[in-house]
């Protein structure tokens, strides 16, 4: 257990030092060079392309559907990549590959069904799956 740092570690150490040094320099430099802004007045108002903002930030709710659609896109897009990769190697993977891909696509279908039925694909008013007894409680309340 030599306490001497091995020779081939030097590049890595220097790399570390440079990274942290650079970070430090950037932080310290921006502190000195940057303008010392005083808070208050226009400083606290969000900048929206030169237009004075309307209302409070909390009122500006974006519909959750935007997010949902985005994430669905990412997920299904990623899965397309897998399928494309399999398609390229279709000959080599043969029936086993075909089976695996079928299972994979089957899973996607189930997921799609689930999303459809939970109303994740609806925009605006949600349809909901029948939930026995649940609405009775709400209705009577």
């Amino acid at each position, binding site marked *: *257990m*030599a*306490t001497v*740092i*091995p020779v081939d*570690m030097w590049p890595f150490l220097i790399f570390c030092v440079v990274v942290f040094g650079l970070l430090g320099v950037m932080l310290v430099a921006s502190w000195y060079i940057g303008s010392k802004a005083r808070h208050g007045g226009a400083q606290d108002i969000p900048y929206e392309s030169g237009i004075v903002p309307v209302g409070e930030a909390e009122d500006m709710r974006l519909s959750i559907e935007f997010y949902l659609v985005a994430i669905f896109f990412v997920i299904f897009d990623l899965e397309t990549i897998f399928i494309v990769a399999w398609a390229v190697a279709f000959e080599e993977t043969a029936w086993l590959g075909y089976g695996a891909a079928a299972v994979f696509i089957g899973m996607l279908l189930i997921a799609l069904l689930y999303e459809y039925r939970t109303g994740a694909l609806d925009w605006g008013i949600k349809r909901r799956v029948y939930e026995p007894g649940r609405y009775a409680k709400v209705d009577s309340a």
Partner: protein
Amino acid sequence: MLWLVPALPLLGSVVLLCTEGRLPKMVVAVVGSGSVGLAAICALYVGMNVVGTGEWQYTETLWTWMAVGDFNPSITLYLDGLALVMTGVITGVGFLIHLYATGYMWEEEGYSRFFAYMNLFVFAMLMLVLGDNLLTLFLGWEGVGLCSYLLIGFFHTDPANGYAARKAFVVTRVGDTLMALGLFLLFREIGTLEIQAALEGATATWPEGSGINTAICLLLLGGAVGKSAQVPLQTWLPDAMAGPTPVSALIHAATMVTAGVYLIARMQDMFLLPGPAMHWVAFVGLVTLFISAFTALVQTDIKRILAFSTMSQIGYMFLALGVGAWSAGIFHLMTHAFFKALLFLASGSVILALHHEQDIFKMGGLWNKLKIPFVSMLIGSLALAALPGTSGFFSKDAILLTAYNEASYGMLFWIGAVGAAFMTSLYTTRMILITFFGEVKTEPHDHSRINMWGPLLVLCALSIGGGWLGFMVLAPYMGDGGVAVEFHAELIALLTLGVPLLGVLIGYLIWGNHAISIDKFAASNLGERLRQFFFGGWGFDWTYDRVFVNPFVRLAQVNKSDFVDLMFTSIASLTTAIHLLVKQTQTGQLRWYATNMVVGLLVVVLIVIVQA
């Protein structure tokens, strides 16, 4: 099957403790005494089987806790002749006493609690004698101590009883500490606490005897002395009479106080190695038997007379062990259990009939009013005084003869023992004459039923016939040839026979027909002083109070703030301080946590790089 013997009383105890007195009294009585009764039947059955095999040894592993490498703790029951006798006494006599107690305690508060403790005691005592490991034995040892404490202080509303219980606990604890030291030493030297292995190891390691062996033996003797109320740790036993009479009969006469005898008999191979240990045992026995016989002579409380008598009889057993008369000592243990239990239970009946009057000078003339207690007491006394034909005679005779034959101090032992035998018959006669004869001083109201006088009759039979039992059952049980009455030295045999009779005769002359008057002597200055001295148990309590108790109390007062404790509290406060410090790191802020992770990562990387 053997496991049932300790398991049944434990079960009884658990049932009674869990129901906390919600059961009707009748059920409590059945559970309390029945569990011990069933245990006795099981013990009998197992005993017959073990005797039948002719092996005289039986091991039953109940339970192996876990096996990790060499560490293999298990609880194993070991039954041999010695353990069988003890088991028989504990369950058999124990059952009779439990049965008696169902009647005796009927009117008392905490009926269920009483039987729960009693059953627990029987369980602990059985673990003590059946354990094949000194650790199990020690657990049982502490268990019986605890039950003894609980039962002495059973009538806890009177602070004096609580004090007596505490005294018993503390004094025996002195012995227990010595014993624990002995066990530690044994474990360090031999490396095992399994009894048979330890004995073999000891005989193999120190065949020539050794200072360490003697030290271990003496430490064990210290434990035995504490538990068995021998000099110098005997002072707790008379006070222990504060407990209910069945407790005195079971714990402080028949079983627990003989645990010391059992311990020494169990470890006999170590005591037999060359060294002075055996003589110490004999001397302890001799001194105790002498001192307590004199003390018993002047007591006025019937239970205290019996208590001192118990100490003295256990002194005989120690003497027997010390001179190598192992089977005679155990034989005496058994017969003593019979007749002393009988004496206690009979005296209990008398006390109950006289509305808790225990002073013999307030009794008198009871012989034709309390017939069964009287007959029982008489038979018990005959056996205690070792009159020929009774069980006590055979066992005591065997001890005296072996003592006489002992090589170095035989004559001294014999003279002392015979002298004490004389004293024994003297105080026994005094007790019987004053209690049952003379004019009636208190009118008795006997309302005992079969569950009380039944056990008395059984114990009567055992007290008389127990000697024969000894020949039949005990004879082959140990290597020293068992118990045999040999009349080789005519004069010695004659003296041994005659001395108790002489004691009875003189006793009768003094307290019976008043032919010899001791009034003048008693009234004289010297007589009064002697009486005081004997009455107070030879000043042991007085001395201990001044030498140990008072200085200790004063020390405790000085050290109120507890200097030693400071060390521990400072550790505690240091830990708390560090806790308060590290607690600050738990800020709940994500950025701080992430920063810390990165710092930790750097530390780990640093360690890896530096050590690479």
